[in-house]
């Protein structure tokens, strides 16, 4: 209910404020008015509805933010579900371990490595990022930034391993997977904290 109200108030406020922000100032262009004269002309014609709209935007935004924060507080109970952030990072860790367990890297291992890394990049990573907004609300922006930095390092290392596998540069794959594992571990620690 709060969320719907917040959205409605915000959109109404946006319409009002943006419309009256666009309203012509009404000054006579032939007199070559100065900027301050334009501002005064506009204010006399549009300032009241403009500020009403602006206030509604701010109020609506705060309502929606309060609703989002409340929803995130109750979302913590779903941490154990299969598609929760923790579970997804666990799946990535499993996939990485699977890729590392292939053994000697060569043409023969190409397909297995490719499929494993593809699954991380195309499925697990996008699924984890679906939780971005909720994680920002629950962790706070600064803590989320530190965690996602490690996650992104893992992502980039996996992408590099994928590229090296495609280019048949076998010696590059293992160091990349090691780096990905280290970064993922750091991300999981920060997420748990």
């Amino acid at each position, binding site marked *: 209910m709060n969320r719907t109200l917040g959205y409605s108030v915000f959109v109404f*406020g*946006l*319409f009002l*404020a*943006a*419309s*009256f*922000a*666009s*309203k*012509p*100032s009404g000054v006579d*262009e032939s007199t*070559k*008015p*100065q*900027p301050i004269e*334009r*501002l005064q002309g*506009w204010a006399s014609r*549009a300032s009241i509805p*403009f500020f009403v709209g*602006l206030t509604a*935007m*701010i109020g609506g*935004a*705060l309502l*929606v*933010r309060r609703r989002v924060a409340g929803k995130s507080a109750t979302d913590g109970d779903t941490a154990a579900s299969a598609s929760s952030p923790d579970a997804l990072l666990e799946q990535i860790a499993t996939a990485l371990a699977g890729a590392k367990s292939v053994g000697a890297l060569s043409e023969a291992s190409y397909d297995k490595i*490719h499929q494993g890394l593809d699954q991380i990049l*195309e*499925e697990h990573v996008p*699924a984890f990022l679906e939780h*971005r907004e909720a994680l920002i609300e629950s962790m*706070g*922006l*600064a*803590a*989320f*930034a*530190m965690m*996602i*930095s490690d996650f*992104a390092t893992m*992502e*980039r*290392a*996996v992408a*590099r*391993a*994928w*590229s*090296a596998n*495609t*280019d*048949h*540069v076998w*010696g*590059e794959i293992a*160091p990349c997977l090691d780096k990905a594992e280290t970064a993922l571990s750091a991300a999981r620690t920060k997420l748990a904290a």
Partner: protein
Amino acid sequence: MSASGDAKLVFFEFRKTTLVKEQPSPPPRRLRRQRRKASSAGLMSATNTYREVTVGAMALGVILGVLMTASFVYIGLKLGFGLPGSTVAAILGFALLRGVGRGILKRPGSGSIVENNINQTVASGINTASAGIVFTFPALLLLGEDFNPWTVIFAAIAGSFMGIVIIIPLRKQMLEIERLRFPTGIAVATILKSPGAGARKSMFLGIGFAASALITIATTKLHLIPETLHIGPAILNLFGGSSTSTSGIAFALTGTMLSVSMANFGAGLLSGRGGLPFLFGGILAWWVIGPMAVSAGWHGAQPGGEDLIWHVYGTMLRPTGIGILIGGALAGVVVAFPAIKGAISSLTAAARLAKESGGDADELSPKVLVIGLIASFLLLLVVAVYGTGNLGQSLVVATTGTLWLGLAGLIVAQATGATDISPLSGLALIAVTLMLLLTGGNVVVAVTLGVAVCVATNQCADMMTDLKTGHLVGSIPRRQQLVQFAVAWIGPAVAVGTTMLLWQAGEGGSNGFGPESTACVNKMAECLPAPQASVLQGMIDGVLSGNAPVDKYLAGAAVGGALALFPIGGLGVLIGLAMYLPFEITFGYGIGCLVSMGVEKLKGRRFIADVLIPLAAGLIVGEALTNLIFTAVDVL
């Protein structure tokens, strides 16, 4: 390798990344020779085995960059728009580095994915100056001002370096935290990864490419399909309405047009749900605010029809949109400050960790960035002093220019990241307006600093796009940043030089382009109308006579600030951008977003990755390359 080199000049850093990883004590000469040979064959030491920053990639990138810069300056003066260099460079790099390098020259490992990424980073880093120069610098020539071209070159070089150093610290914020899409970045990464993408993905890439190329030919060359579909006017006619009516509904329908641009549609496909605020902003502007304004009689005595559309757009929607863009970006920085602080902290921590462990950091050290910023600022200050003759005034001008450059770069990078569309012209106008006010109407200094701002903002968007591509293919950001640094000075020199050459090609050594040039007056094929610079020239005349819509900018900025409070990132930038643009562009992009959302709901995320992304990438690349080929044919 010690990171103490981070405090040295950039070209020392560059040298380190191209050579084999150094040992603590120098090895025997025989061993060094072996390593160089192994390095060139792509079979380097165990910790650095992947061909990435190579002489081949750099050389090809510079050649392509220089050629594209000169060509795109010509195209910009002729047609008024530029073309993306990254996609062209990626495709040519694929053919030359991989096809010729591996297939014909038999060099194992040549043309690797990350090596080709360096090639396209270099080429686009050079080419990006062309758009910034073409929009601003020719105005100085058209206005007949007396100036020293070297000041323009130095200002552009300063802007080029500044754009890179300002945006790099925001890489984590934009790519890792906000997860901006950068559709062209994704498209280029899709091309680079095509060798490993599998036959199915490559097939969809090809289908998208072919469809886009055919549609582009059908619209722009054969005129079998109109470039813009007048959907609203057709509906209006169907119901017996008149487009010359001044009712709100007539306005809404007359303004409802759709640009038949596959690249625009493809960008929407790649953005998906994240691009919806952009469509919302377009609907708000063209289906709500505009009709309401017309119904309320705000348009004055302006008669109905397309003239009314452009009047409302030009005097109400566009300037308010610019204000919302600025306010949204400024407020967005404030709201996101904890995350930006966290991102910069991790940048500093990573550099310190690398120094302690003797390894390479993934990012350029903050020290290098600070040195780059100070050096660029000093260059800009020297240019300002040369133009004004007053140190105090020049300090104010250079500082304001730098601050505006940073904000404009942020806006353009965010807008490009969300939609692939850059509001460069509006922001350049504000820059020139600000400089004119601060210098008391000194057009030469204002436009020269406007050149710096334009080049810098383009460089910001290009660097971020390239870093997005690099993130997707696994490139090390520091290497991309270094190579872009190394070549940042080339584009401005080539672009200014090409513009001067074309100007001096006119009769009597001047007037080689512009609407008043001999070729344009006589409607000859060689006419270069310089449309963007002509618009800026007109705007400068307007500002000098007091016509700047300051009320719209300020009111819009307040709206943009309030938009930043809503818990959707970048909302102010997206809605401001949508109000700033004609609806035909927003509409096409929005349809792409809706299609993407529908497909994901029906088919799932894996389908998006396997089919939609390569298809959309093909659409973007197909239109860009087709336009480039036909333009080159026309020009030659």
